[in-house]
């Protein structure tokens, strides 16, 4: 099964510029997924760099790479949830994630995500991110929950 960007927008509450997946190329709901994110120089994360900074400063932020992988995990999980369980997916924990090398504008990042378990409404995922044949990140464990909007607002 393949999901185009319109279908990702229907599944995820994230919107530009925080919707950090372009397409899901293959998914076995509840089991595994392969998703693509293309890094482009016109993303807002590049807007603030001072003129004349060297090439290494254009490394795609690790925070956004992790978020992009996490959105792949969210899609994988949400596809297997019952309809009518609406809310916002919240990233609650991570363990042993390693950033091996940065991505740059023009790179196509491919996330390979596994859904390891779902316990008491919390999902645990793991996997890796690739640019071509190079592994650029490993994700030992990422945990998320879905919370109703009003419950999040009350918790603050």
């Amino acid at each position, binding site marked *: 099964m393949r999901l185009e960007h319109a279908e990702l927008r229907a599944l995820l*509450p*994230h*919107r*530009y*510029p*925080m*919707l950090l997946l372009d397409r899901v190329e293959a998914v076995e709901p509840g089991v595994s997924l392969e998703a693509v994110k293309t890094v482009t120089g016109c993303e*807002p*994360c*590049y807007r*603030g*760099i*001072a003129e004349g*900074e*060297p090439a*290494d*400063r*254009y*490394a*795609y*932020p*690790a*925070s*956004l790479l*992790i*978020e992009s992988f*996490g959105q792949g995990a969210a899609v994988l999980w949400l596809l297997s949830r019952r309809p009518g369980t609406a809310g*916002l997916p*919240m*990233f*609650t*924990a*991570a*363990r*042993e*994630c*390693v*950033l091996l090398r*940065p991505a740059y504008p023009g790179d196509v990042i491919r996330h390979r995500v596994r859904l390891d378990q779902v316990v008491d409404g919390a999902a645990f995922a793991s996997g890796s991110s690739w640019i071509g044949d190079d592994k650029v990140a490993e994700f030992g464990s990422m945990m998320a929950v879905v919370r109703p*909007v009003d419950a*999040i*607002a009350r*918790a*603050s």
Partner: protein
Amino acid sequence: MTAPPTFRAGTDPAQTYAAAAAPLQAVEWVEVGAGPRGGITLRAGVTVDPADVYLGGHFPQLTVYPGVFTLETLRQAVTAAVGCCAGRLPDLHRLRSARFLAPLLAGDTLTVTASLGPVADDQSFEVTAECVRGDGVRAATVRAVFRWPAPEGGV
């Protein structure tokens, strides 16, 4: 091999933001102090601004400071505190553990308290951080390894 650098303080958060790609200026102020065994301690803070372009997409119906932006706040605080080594900025290399315990919404303040270092021979250093919301609620805990990347072709 380049000798392990010592920490140096003094970079302005706005300069840190302008020095590399970043989704937002995730630090407004940084204070740096001496730590044990050649390491340092830092405190840094930011207020969640719902007008930020990235936060507008997370989420349209309710602004929530993403957990990964707490990591971004920590990265920019660390960068502001330790500066460059051989022209390279430090970056997050290994996230040993992170727990996001309470949401940060529009107008909330986030204060990070962290201990860094000392610096290892491979130019990496451990960071342990606690993140607290303005009302005193613990929002996140992070244990991570940052490092200055070796120059291209370097070791």
